[in-house]
């Protein structure tokens, strides 16, 4: 494989990774909830799509018209009546609850669909396409397109709508947002529902591009967290960049070390990034305080004169 192919295919996979990370980043950014069930929501979306496809005989992406609202409807009460109450009790209870939900989802899928690997059939699943002289899979290009589209959509909703303003207010200070007439509990629940909807899109994308089993969620949750840690939770754009960076690193790592180490590269990158994160945060913090210093000094001078 030449270097261009490695880079381009890495970036394309990155689009999928951004989709996986986006839902996690949303939930974590708004309510500091670590959703250990996000990977299982992704897999659930893929299995729900197999049901709709078998029932109506439609295209996987068309099945999203039913799967996305269904996932959002299921997710809304989980946040509203279970997780929001637990968030007030500290970090661990909601973490444990999502852990339990993850267990329930993957076990239920195993029970209903057996543990065999499946994939979503689509005529374009293995079709090739030529971009800039590089032979690529069409589905990977679609994946990048979806990742970018979801990022832009989320950014627009967050920054340009009243609802987005309510969401940002709830994230910044839930108590004050509550006194301003924002129903924070509903905002939280809608955020979680939106995150599940994004997970469903990611699930269908994964289902068409690769295969999935009831336990695939575990590896995707880790990919998602790697993206979140790389890209931060501040903005959807950061998540997209995090996804692209991870895709690139994985592709280059796989090309250098051999295909069987592709997953290992992700985990290793993740641990290294996590280990370096406190250092990086400190550097950023130092630079910020250094930037602030002259202002403070000027004010002090002004006060003394």
């Amino acid at each position, binding site marked *: 494989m030449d270097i261009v192919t490695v880079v381009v295919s890495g970036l394309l996979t990155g689009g999928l990774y951004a989709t996986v990370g986006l839902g996690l980043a949303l939930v974590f950014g708004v309510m500091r909830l670590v959703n250990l069930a996000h990977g299982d929501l992704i897999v659930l979306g893929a299995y729900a799509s197999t049901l709709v496809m078998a029932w109506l005989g439609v295209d996987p992406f068309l099945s999203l018209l039913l799967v996305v609202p269904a996932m959002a409807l299921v997710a809304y009460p989980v946040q509203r009546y279970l997780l929001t109450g637990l968030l007030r009790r500290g970090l661990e*209870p909601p973490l444990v609850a999502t852990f*339990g939900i993850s*267990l329930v989802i993957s076990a239920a899928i*195993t*029970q209903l669909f057996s543990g065999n690997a499946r994939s979503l059939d689509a005529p374009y699943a293995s079709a090739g396409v030529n971009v800039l002289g590089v032979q690529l899979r069409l589905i990977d290009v679609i994946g990048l397109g979806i990742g970018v589209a979801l990022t832009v959509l989320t950014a627009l909703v967050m920054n340009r709508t009243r609802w987005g303003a309510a969401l940002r207010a709830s994230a910044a200070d839930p108590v004050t947002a509550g006194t301003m007439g924002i129903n924070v509990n509903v905002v939280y629940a809608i955020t979680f529902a939106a995150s599940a909807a994004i997970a469903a899109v990611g699930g269908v994308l994964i289902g068409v591009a690769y295969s999935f089993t009831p336990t695939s969620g575990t590896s995707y*949750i880790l990919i998602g967290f790697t993206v979140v840690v790389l890209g931060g939770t501040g903005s959807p754009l950061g998540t997209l960049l995090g996804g692209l960076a991870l895709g690139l690193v994985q592709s280059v790592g796989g090309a250098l070390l051999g295909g069987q180490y592709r997953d290992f590269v992700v*985990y290793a990158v*993740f641990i290294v990034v*996590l*280990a370096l994160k406190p250092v990086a945060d400190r550097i950023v913090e130092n630079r910020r305080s250094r930037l602030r210093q002259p202002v403070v000094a000027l004010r002090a001078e002004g006060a003394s004169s």
Partner: protein
Amino acid sequence: MRTLLAASSAGSRYRSLIALAIAVVVLFAAQGAFGRYQTSVLTTLLLYVCLVSAWNLIGGVAGQFSLASSAVVGLGSYTVVMALRAAALPLAVVLGLAVVGGALFSAILGAILFRLRGFYFTIGTLAAALATMTWMTTWDVTGATTGISAPIQLIPDGATLYRWALGAAAVAMAASILVIHSPLGLRLRSVRDGEDIADSLGISPFTMKMAAIVLSGALTALGGGLFALQKASVEPFSAFSLNWSITIIVMAIVGGLGTTWGPVVGVVVIYYGLTVQLQSLPSLSALLSGLVLVLVIRFLPGGIVGACRDLARWTWGRLRRPRPAARTA
């Protein structure tokens, strides 16, 4: 404050140790009465008690929600099987190797991951667990995906294994009791409940967490090594399966985090109450244990043991204090 001091009192420690000693003697003496199947179920149960008590030290007492147990269980399993293949050493030496290996591995893990706090630590341990599993599926030395099996003549029989499992569970429980009712346990809980405050009082959170993870890792590897002997062969997908971490955590939380007897209750409820009863339906028992976990964290934050303690305290309070109506009469 009073409850903390009470928890660290010597009386409570001796009562727990005596109860443990009685339980061990009874289980040892009753061995002859068990059939093959019961012995095997009890062996598994005791090994789970060892693993869950070990996790309780790091996850419950020190409050570090680690998902890396599966890596340490796998490490213990592989150490025991590889050591038995390399040389026909006595079982005690082989298990000792696993304990040392588990402690060393946990120390390395802790040195890297305790730079992180809260959920970053949790996710870091998840990455470590998955990374070691992926690594083991590609490493030729340990037979990659096919794994390795121990020489059949060196595998102890069911009765011997039962005694080893009883010993391992007893050691883990005794360690838990000694730690929980000691100044070390008090310091660990202070790190769990307020890391910065503990730090400002001169308790090093890093040293405390390292002590907890090393002790926990040593006991986890011991349990993992004995589990490998029960199965006689190891392969990466089951020895390093994340299911170990999941099962252990579910048991610990359902029983009662940070309590001495919570692990035992959790193991009995989840393993004996669900896994054994629904042996032919593993995914249904996984589903139910997930549901139980969600219900426990929602309605019984202290687990079963915590709820019983609250109930006992409440009834005790009612009994000691006469009702207002009775007082006025």
